[in-house]
């Protein structure tokens, strides 16, 4: 399991250091495809959709809705073993 766990991280958005999680577009247990819209984060009236970094099953949500997160922070985890 561990070997196939893949971290979902906040991408480098340029000069943006902190964002707030607006909502997850996929729930725990959902099967996601690499590049698919995964969650929305917001910074100063800009909503950014974070894509799934890998295909697999969303097994963990580390940053809940409303949480303030920093650049590079782990937002969740995708299990690629299936």
């Amino acid at each position, binding site marked *: 399991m561990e070997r196939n766990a893949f971290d979902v991280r906040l991408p480098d958005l340029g000069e943006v250091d902190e964002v707030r999680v607006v909502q997850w577009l996929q729930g725990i247990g959902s099967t996601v495809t690499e590049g698919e819209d995964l969650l929305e984060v917001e910074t*100063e009236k*800009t909503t950014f*959709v974070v894509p799934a970094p890998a295909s697999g099953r969303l097994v963990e949500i580390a940053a809940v809705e409303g949480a303030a997160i920093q650049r590079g922070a782990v937002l969740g985890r995708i299990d690629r073993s299936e």
Partner: protein
Amino acid sequence: MAGSTVPNRRAVHLPLGRADYGWTLDLQRTLHARRKAGAAPDVVITVEHNPVITLGRSGSREHLLASPGELKREGIEVLEVERGGDVTYHGPGQLVVYPIVDLRGHGRDVRRFVRGLEEATIATLADLGIEAGRREGYPGVWVSDRKIAAIGVYVSGWVTRHGLALNVAVNPVHFAMIRPCGLSVEAVSICDLLGRTVDLDRVRDALLERLAERFGWVMEATSLDEVLGGASG
């Protein structure tokens, strides 16, 4: 330091004239999907909406100051939308600009993109003799403590939609019906500040020029048929 870039990227301008908010949102989504797939160049839509109040994700109906009866009498629609932010009014006399832009061609920098929109607007206003600026932490363009342009952007697959709304000559009665973005700020139009009428199309063309400067675009006009039909994009 967003100095002028050498224009080297093709972009198209799609002037819609007057159109409903909902219809334009569908069009934005279509063009957004095509841009994401690489089937269209950067597109800048310009439009004047029929009267509408939109509530963003964090929007509260408490910031709607008019009664349903008053809204109906004025012909104002109320819609809940996907963008961030609170309450916004769009209507005649307001120049709305929706850039459908792939930020991978613009340094993958969300903040810089928003600042580019703000700076292009500020430069356009300066040419009209209006001193406007940005306010740290409050996106949009301001003339002292009054808001002249609202900004709200949505980015998916590094491609943008939504954009900016610049008040050229907006009905002040309609503005009084909301508390913009939930703040107790007043909105203001270019015409109110100058005390004379200003042609919206002229402001549009001036703003497009400033946007092209900021984003390094060589801009040409396109039509709905062309942008939706052209297989080569």
